[in-house]
């Protein structure tokens, strides 16, 4: 690791000020991506601004029919929260499958969403549920937030404070995890919210995206048969040593079918 200065600010404005004032500063949340990156000397921040002590980023609550989750909420808290398990069980199940126990004890929702790793799990839930990303400056709709590989609508120094999820009638997530890393080779989040079907795909492409053909098919007929014959265009999908693009294209349909299977066996999803 290169040298840096660690600062743990006491308030959100102080954190924001530090990040704006020091051009080379980076926010640190759970550190489950950032610290391994620093250890490999792939990044050289001048300062690390630790957000995990900020009360403004904490908490899980149902507010006016929406589930609000603070950015510094750890995956284990989402996975085990009674509020999340009762109101949005698919999100609790997704969180319980991220990485491994050690990662879930440290990693945070805000950190994962801000990093927007193309194989991360949370972006599929945020996009599939049409959640709203609240920052210290504004509110951003999920459709505008994710902008491709590791890219988001966040401006320099802008911090996610919480994510607000509408409560769906039904939702489920299915992923094919990479057998060693646990990252999604492909993960599909299907949600029906206010009668509208959305299908978000992570892991398969350069960033999370909506599978609009499946959305239209499921909107017309919400059943596995509706998408069983759909083909996914592999042109822009990821290809690497783990799987060629055509394999991931097939996984998109298979994971969507698995998510639908979950919905058929339980009224609210997992």
């Amino acid at each position, binding site marked *: *690791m*290169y*040298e*840096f*200065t*660690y600062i*743990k600010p006491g308030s959100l404005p102080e954190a924001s000020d530090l990040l704006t004032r020091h051009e080379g500063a980076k926010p*640190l949340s759970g*550190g*489950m991506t950032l*610290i*391994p990156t*620093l*250890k*490999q000397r792939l990044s050289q921040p001048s300062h*690390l601004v*630790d957000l*995990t002590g900020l009360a403004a980023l904490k908490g899980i609550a149902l507010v006016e029919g929406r589930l609000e989750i603070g950015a510094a909420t750890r995956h*284990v808290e989402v996975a085990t929260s009674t509020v999340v398990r009762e109101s949005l069980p698919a999100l609790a199940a997704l969180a319980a499958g991220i*990485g*491994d*126990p*050690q*990662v879930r*004890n*440290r990693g945070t929702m805000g950190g994962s969403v801000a990093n927007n790793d193309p194989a991360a799990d949370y972006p599929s839930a945020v996009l599939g549920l049409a959640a709203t990303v609240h920052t210290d400056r504004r509110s951003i709709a999920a459709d505008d937030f994710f902008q491709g590989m590791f890219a988001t609508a966040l401006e320099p120094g802008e911090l996610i404070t919480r994510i607000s999820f509408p409560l769906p009638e039904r939702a489920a997530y299915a992923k094919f995890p990479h057998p*060693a*890393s*646990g990252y999604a080779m492909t993960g599909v989040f299907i949600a029906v919210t206010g009668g509208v079907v959305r299908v978000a795909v992570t892991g398969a492409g350069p960033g999370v995206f909506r599978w609009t053909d499946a959305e239209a098919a499921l909107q017309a007929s919400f059943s596995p048969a509706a998408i069983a014959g759909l083909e996914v265009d592999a042109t822009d999908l990821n290809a690497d040593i783990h799987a060629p693009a055509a394999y991931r294209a097939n996984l998109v349909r298979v994971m969507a079918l698995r998510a639908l299977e979950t919905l058929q066996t339980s009224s609210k999803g997992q």
Partner: protein
Amino acid sequence: MSQVSLTVNGKAVSVDVEDRTLLSSVLRENLGLTGTHIGCDTSQCGACTVHLDGRVVKSCTVLAVQAAGSDVMTIEGLAPSHDPSGATLHPVQQAFSECHALQCGFCTPGMIMAVTGLLKDTPDPDEQQIIHGLEGNLCRCTGYVNIVKAVKQAASALRA
């Protein structure tokens, strides 16, 4: 440099470290607690697993400064946490020994710390829960068969 105060295995300690120092380095180099192993250095193998405020973490992926004010337990503190006289092994250690849940032993301290964390959350895990609960720990010798057996034995010993 920062001064970091924390509690390790029940004792208050204070160390002067660079901000980039990892918790695993403080445990091994400053405090001489070499039971915490460094296996991969890429946050994958789990050999460095310790308990931080009662939760399992990979100490090679936590900065020492992040752990300031926290309570850390390493493999050296596990048996005394169960039997303050230190005369007997922790039931998870005992089960690993009896089930021969190790060959070279390198992953064992991290594996045992991960298992004690798993059994705290899930006192009576089935095989799938054990496999899922140990996804953050790699063993290159055993094929995991005897590790799973040891977890089942330790779970019943701890519930007794």
